[in-house]
């Protein structure tokens, strides 16, 4: 093992921050639904990939700017999120059963993606791809920078909304003590559906970012599960900024591992971290 140069390490740390913002963006919707709705939505990853493929289709075949596809994808995935939540709450599922049911849903989405787009690798070529800024000795790719900016904006936006608006207060009250909040006149069903819609929309936005930066293939859906769960559990359930910060910690530690060892070792960092967290952090979930 040779010791990597300072530039390589700095570049690794930077790409760790970028991939960490992707983890955070994916984790935001997952963690909000888990913490506030007690739904562990594996289909969140399926939705993100579905959005990524839709963005790919619209942008590469329809010739639309990938960022403009958000105008279609955000409302569509808001509706999908609402629909799934409606179904799950209709049958009053436990957290474990929500995990199982959305596992099945993810398999359906994966099969659907494989049917329409095949299992081939797909890479979105857009005006943004391959564009880089040069800062000092470091390269800053534009698609990744867009992900980081979007993640920060959404993270702080949702944090502020949860903290300062009546809607956010109602949601937090419901998570803490639902019957009491209901007694104070908070409409539980409507708020749950709204929040699930927001989580769905977040999956859609994360999907567009995925399409901008990454090569897509259906089986990649599961590659994100471990690391994003690790970020969510590390950052705290039901918080929008926690997963983002934790995602960056995980991302940087992975990227530095890759600088020292072979890239194929990277998954072991996040999955070991997830196992350690599950064992050592009581009361996190």
């Amino acid at each position: 093992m040779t010791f990597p140069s300072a530039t390589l390490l700095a570049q690794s740390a930077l790409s760790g921050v970028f991939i960490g913002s992707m983890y955070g963006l994916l984790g935001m919707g997952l963690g909000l639904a888990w913490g506030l709705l007690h739904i562990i939505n594996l289909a969140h990853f399926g939705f993100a990939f579905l959005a990524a493929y839709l963005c790919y289709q619209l942008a590469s075949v329809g010739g639309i700017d990938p960022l403009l596809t958000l105008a279609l994808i955000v409302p569509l995935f808001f509706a999908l999120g609402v629909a799934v939540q409606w179904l799950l709450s209709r049958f009053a599922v436990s957290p474990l059963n929500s995990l199982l049911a959305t596992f099945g849903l993810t398999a359906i989405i994966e099969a659907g993606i494989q049917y329409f787009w095949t299992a081939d690798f797909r890479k979105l070529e857009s005006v943004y791809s391959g564009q880089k800024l040069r800062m000092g000795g470091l390269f800053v790719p534009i698609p990744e920078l867009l992900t980081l900016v979007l993640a920060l904006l959404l993270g702080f936006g949702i944090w502020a909304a949860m903290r300062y608006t009546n809607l956010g207060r109602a949601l937090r009250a419901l998570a803490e003590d639902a019957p009491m909040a209901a007694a104070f006149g908070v409409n539980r069903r409507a708020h749950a559906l709204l929040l699930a819609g927001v989580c769905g929309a977040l999956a859609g936005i994360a999907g567009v970012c995925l399409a901008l930066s990454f090569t897509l293939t259906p089986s990649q859906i599961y590659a994100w599960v471990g690391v994003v769960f690790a970020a969510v559990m590390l950052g705290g359930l039901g918080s929008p900024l926690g997963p983002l910060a934790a995602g960056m910690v995980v991302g940087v530690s992975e990227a530095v591992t890759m600088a020292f060892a072979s890239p194929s070792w990277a998954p072991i960092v996040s999955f070991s971290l997830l196992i350690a967290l599950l064992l050592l952090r009581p009361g996190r979930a």
Partner: protein
Amino acid sequence: MPFLHLPAFYESFLYLVFHWIVLATSWNILSGYSGYFSFGHGAFFGAGVYTTAVLAGKYDVPFLWTLPAAALVAALLGLGLGAVVFRVRHVRGELFALLTLAATFVLATIVLNTPIDGGPGVYLSAVPVPKLAPTASGAFYMMALVLAIGTVFIAYAISRARLGLGLFAIHDDEDAAEVMGVPTYRYKLVAFGVSCALAGIAGGIQALFVSYVTASGTFNITVPLTVILMSVLGGTRSWGGPAIGATVITILLYATTAVDQPVAGKAAVGAVLVAAILLMP
């Protein structure tokens, strides 16, 4: 059966049915009886696959001798994981499911990056199939049949024994069971060990059946998804339910592959799982 000289297709198809019966029933011994849903059955199945692949494919150990080794490696992995996990009181339900899923990917990464596999996969095409029947497919059929009968019998015996009653009690209310004197830690560990050992043997046989194993093909989400589906569909509290679920789902999957729609098969499995979870009481 193999001595009737039917076309090899029937033997191979029945091999698959028995293979899934073993995996689903062995999963059910811990997860179904005690309610600790494991998403990591693929890890123990994969441990068996790679034990046989490495011993038979690289060190020329006779195939049948690798099967006890496959059981042992898988069981030790399960006992090691269980010895840590079952000590931690809050790792139940969905957290146990996530943890076992993560363990699968850790194991896959280790296998992929060490000389166990190293990346290109392991070939077993030079390994002779044991002469248990006139044809190779017949031999696989015989091995899987014996293993399936053995697994279902073990599942039956456990469900009738103190161990099974203890596991059912853990499922219903673990804290109450503990207070009533059920040694919950030991019961869960024993059930996990048995469950993993059986999955390991199934993996060992499967390694020779497919004769070329890769890390991504072994440690993917298919095994946990399918066994959970089969067991939930068949009934997790009965010893025979997973076997029935396995038979039905294998036929369903085969039917969609036969008409050249394997993707539709995957979607159908997902849809059945969603429907089963939502509609079952």
